[in-house]
């Protein structure tokens, strides 16, 4: 019974989320008390479902780009030929993380204009660090005797990377991706300040018109998405780790 409870709760959250996105009107009575002066309780300047999908799309594009760049960079600096670039790449990626996303947006708008692009740039830069650091940890901590055995068996550098090092680092890299995705899901909301179509639009509209119901529904959808995606990626990680007989962090 105990073991099923978390799964049951997650399914409930998922069902609620889908129901709210598909037919938000049903929930109107619940949110009505939060509004004042007869303001609408459900966001009425666009479909919540399409905003949520746009939000996910933006995060997905930025994350995939961050994965490709961060993992390639980590692979590069852990090969014998690339070791000298390790400190440089570390500081570059760290700069990406220290730059506040709002500042990136402000700087990116004059360069690429309003819309989705500046948000993608901000999310991409912000998402690099966790993936890069974890990929680096994974690739540098593969057990020495396993890598030695792979060399002794006659694997070339590429074969070692693809058949041994990357599969062994997979759980750690997945953990980095999970962190990155959750940060991006939250950060994407501020993309709406530069006219990106994300769930931030609902929150900002609520803040502008002093409508607590808008703020709450925008925030709750983002939160539910983050929790569900976090859980799904954690489960994936545990699967990958269990296969190797590693004890998961939980």
């Amino acid at each position, binding site marked *: 019974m105990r073991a099923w409870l978390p799964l049951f709760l997650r399914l409930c959250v998922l069902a609620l989320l889908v129901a709210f996105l598909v037919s938000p009107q049903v929930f109107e009575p619940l949110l009505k008390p939060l509004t004042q002066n007869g303001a609408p309780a459900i966001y009425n300047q666009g479909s919540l479902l399409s905003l949520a999908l746009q939000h996910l799309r933006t995060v997905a594009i930025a994350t995939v780009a961050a994965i490709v760049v961060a993992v390639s960079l980590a692979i590069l600096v852990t090969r014998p030929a690339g070791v000298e670039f390790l400190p440089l790449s570390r500081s570059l990626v760290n700069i990406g993380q220290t730059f506040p996303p709002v500042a990136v947006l402000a700087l990116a708008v004059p360069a690429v204009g309003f819309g989705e692009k500046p948000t993608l740039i901000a999310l991409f830069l912000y998402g690099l660090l966790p993936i890069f650091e974890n990929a680096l940890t994974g690739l540098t901590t593969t057990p020495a005797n*396993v890598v*030695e055995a792979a060399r002794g068996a006659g694997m070339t550098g590429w074969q070692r990377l693809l058949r041994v090092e990357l599969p062994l680092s997979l759980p750690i890299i997945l953990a980095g991706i999970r962190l990155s995705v959750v940060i991006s899901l939250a950060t994407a909301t501020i993309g709406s300040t530069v006219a990106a179509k994300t769930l931030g639009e609902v929150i900002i509209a609520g803040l502008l018109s002093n409508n607590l119901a808008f703020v709450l529904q925008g925030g709750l959808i983002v939160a539910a998405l983050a929790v569900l995606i976090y859980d799904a990626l954690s489960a994936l990680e545990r699967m990958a780790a269990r296969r190797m*007989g590693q004890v998961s962090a939980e």
Partner: protein
Amino acid sequence: MIEIEHVTKRYGDVAVVDDVSMVIEPRTVTVIVGTSGSGKTTLLRMINRLVEPTSGTIRLDGVDNRTVPGPQLRRSIGYAIQGHGLFPHRTVAQNIATVPSLLGWDAGRIRARVDELLSLFQLDPAAFGARYPHELSGGQQQRVGVARALAAEPNVLLMDEPFGALDPIIRTKAQEDLLAIQRRFGTTIILVTHDMEEAVHLGDRIAVMDAGRLIQYAIPAEILARPANDFVETLVGASDRPFKLLSLGAVRDAVEPGEAEGAAIGDEATQRDALAELLWSGRAAMPVTDDEGRALGRVTVNGLVKRAARPA
């Protein structure tokens, strides 16, 4: 045949392997013995070019090993290491199939070979093939490690302290298995260890290394009887070398005519086991039988003691 000629490996100013020359005969077991830092592992790893020598040549069946690309060379030479180094994300069958699949064998041939090796190492293919390494005991992991090294039917097998992580009982069993497999396939085995006992037990020849140099390279009886210097003598262990010497001979070779009372010993047992049994049971002689139980004669304490003396 493996010919090692004037091989030196330097890291900076330090010669880890210093001008070593030796010839390893095919289908024999050669054990390289030395303390930590003696260069024994480095010498082993230069044979399959995991380490490149600073100078000198290593020839395998007359072919300079530098004429073959490293990965290709290593696929033709078995390699087993301490702590087995199995790939934790691959099943036992996939681990054993590593080199055959690198060589591009077809799936049917790989499966047949994996099953053959698992059976050879007393692991049921149906039960163990699909398991992951962490689901096996230490002894089973070690056997899978050796099976993986032998998968592509190499003529030469390099082993770096393969039994180091095993408890004494499983180690003895693993050593017997290795000798049986060596006799079956006729593989040339070069094994590195710090344990002289293991070297005497397994080796057709023993190479003793110290501080990068090859001190003595000879058959076990020679090493025991005439250690080249004090270092070899210490390694052999002065207090029990007569017993090591006895452990080299089978009871069959020490049989004397006559009869004796009490439990018999098989003619396959070592003379050391026979002496131990005689001392423990307080007898002066015991009967010897062959593997079908026929009486062959007897062994005596006096006879064995004479054999334990330093050879002239």
